[in-house]
């Protein structure tokens, strides 16, 4: 299959994508690296110059840094946990014979089509709002005091919003994987007297391993970059309770107009994201190999 000619042709065909991504990655990265060692604040352009690693030091020693890392991990981990377990359960449920399967599936995947600012605005105003939100209404309805979700449990609230957005994606991939499972194997197991839990544990779950890997990998890539949902709902607060690494970079870049420190933060975020990626690949990457 791989003759010399097709190899060079392959390289030729691969090159536009690689080159473009290289440019897309290297130009901003080079600029970012350069800015990250400069004092460059948009609002004080006259105070500029080379500062070595002062920006990195400022970013890493900022009071919210470690909390931001913890919050990032909690956000990614929490959303993954909810979407994967929820996705499996829902996939199992709607894979059963039932009336109106088509409509059920349409309803279940709907949140995936909602743009992040809209999702965040809807949840913030119509559900979480402690005066007019539906959750407050429900609590009042059963005689409890309204709970201030975004003030008292900001990160958990954001996890709920983001998990809602990504649940359909996980459900869909897991459902497709589930449907590819040979039903004869399940029936055989049933004949042998395996109870539902064992059938799930020893036949379905191993079959779903690849699908779960894919869900985890793709969602992690997107979840590390979550910004709009935080911006719209809590602005990273109260305090820094819901500040993630991405939001911290945003704060430097936009609120402080500090391009230098934001650039340094971006570099730190990329390094950490790649560490996470390497861990992920180590832990689950073997599932991806054919």
């Amino acid at each position, binding site marked *: 299959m791989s003759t010399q000619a097709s*190899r060079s042709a392959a390289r030729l065909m691969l090159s536009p994508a690689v080159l473009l991504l290289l440019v897309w990655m290297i130009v901003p990265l080079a600029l970012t690296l350069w800015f990250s060692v400069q004092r460059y604040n948009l609002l004080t352009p006259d105070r500029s110059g080379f500062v070595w690693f002062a920006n990195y030091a400022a970013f890493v020693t900022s009071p919210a840094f470690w909390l931001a890392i913890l919050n990032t991990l909690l956000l990614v981990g929490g959303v993954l946990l909810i979407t994967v377990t929820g996705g499996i359960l829902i996939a199992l449920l709607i894979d059963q014979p039932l009336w109106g399967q088509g409509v059920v599936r349409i309803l279940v995947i*709907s949140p995936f089509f909602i743009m992040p600012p809209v999702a965040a605005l809807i949840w913030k105003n119509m559900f979480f709002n402690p005066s007019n939100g539906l959750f407050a209404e429900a609590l009042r309805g059963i005689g409890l005091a309204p709970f201030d979700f975004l003030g008292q449990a900001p990160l958990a609230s954001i996890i709920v919003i983001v998990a809602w957005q990504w649940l359909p994606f996980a459900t869909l991939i897991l459902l*497709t994987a589930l449907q590819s499972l040979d039903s004869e194997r399940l029936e055989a197991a049933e004949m042998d007297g395996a109870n539902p839990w064992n059938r799930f544990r020893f036949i379905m779950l191993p079959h779903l391993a690849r699908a779960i890997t894919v869900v985890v990998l793709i969602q992690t890539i997107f979840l590390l970059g979550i910004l709009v949902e935080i911006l719209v709902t809590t602005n990273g607060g109260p305090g820094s309770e819901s500040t993630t690494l991405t939001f911290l970079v945003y704060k430097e870049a936009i609120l402080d107009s500090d391009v230098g420190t934001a650039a340094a933060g971006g570099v730190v975020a990329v390094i950490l994201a790649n560490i996470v990626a390497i861990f992920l690949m180590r832990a689950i990457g073997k599932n991806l190999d054919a």
Partner: protein
Amino acid sequence: MARAVSTQRKAVNTALAWGVALLIAFPILWTFLTSFKPEPQAVASPPVWFGFDWTVRNYVDVQRQRDYFDYFWNSVVLALGSTALGLVIAIPAAWSMAFVPGAKTKDLLMWMLSTKMMPGVAVLVPIYLVFVWLGLLDTRIGLVVVLMLINLPIIVWMLYTYFREIPGEILEAARMDGASLGREILYVLTPMAIPGIASTVLLNIILAWNEAFWTIVLTTTNAAPLTKFISGFSSPQGLFYAKLSAASTMAIAPILIMGWFSQKQLVRGLTFGAVK
């Protein structure tokens, strides 16, 4: 699939599944409902379900504040444009990765995905400066390129996993018959990969439609899509739930309807190689 189950069990399943589905879709349904309420009834306590004074005034108000169709049209152009451009670049790349894999193919793929991990805000000012130099601010072409680049890794990966499931012998046979590389891709591979390409296209349109950072930062009026449309309604003064709901409905309706109609095609290829 077609396991025989009792009607009773099917009824229980149906009730459960509908319950869960309605719960998941509830925020969207509620927003839709609220968009037809007069403002005071949108925040009424206890909430009004259907017995309110139905009105389309919110839609009229929103439309009067800004012309929806300008934004809608930009969203369409950006989503379709970036998808088309992305496909042209990604198909050859995915082909060569799938059929002529090298030792570094996996690493290359992972590297492509890792380009998505740089937080956009960190490169905001550098990219903005580049756009100023190139005169690309608030142009559709600039946004099309950015959106294409953001989603390119996902497209390449999706196509790659899909192409890999196509047996190489078929391509081999075509080559034996004297088909050139271009023809091989165009006439042999592409038709076989239509389901995979279709779902790639759909996913990419959704991602491009919903991208809400660069589309807000790099546009003012000429290229501004629906994400920018909605960002002006987020916290106006006074009661605004009904108007916000109307604007939200307008922003999400096109992509939601497209998604509903094409969900079969979307789902078929949305596996990222997860199904063996």
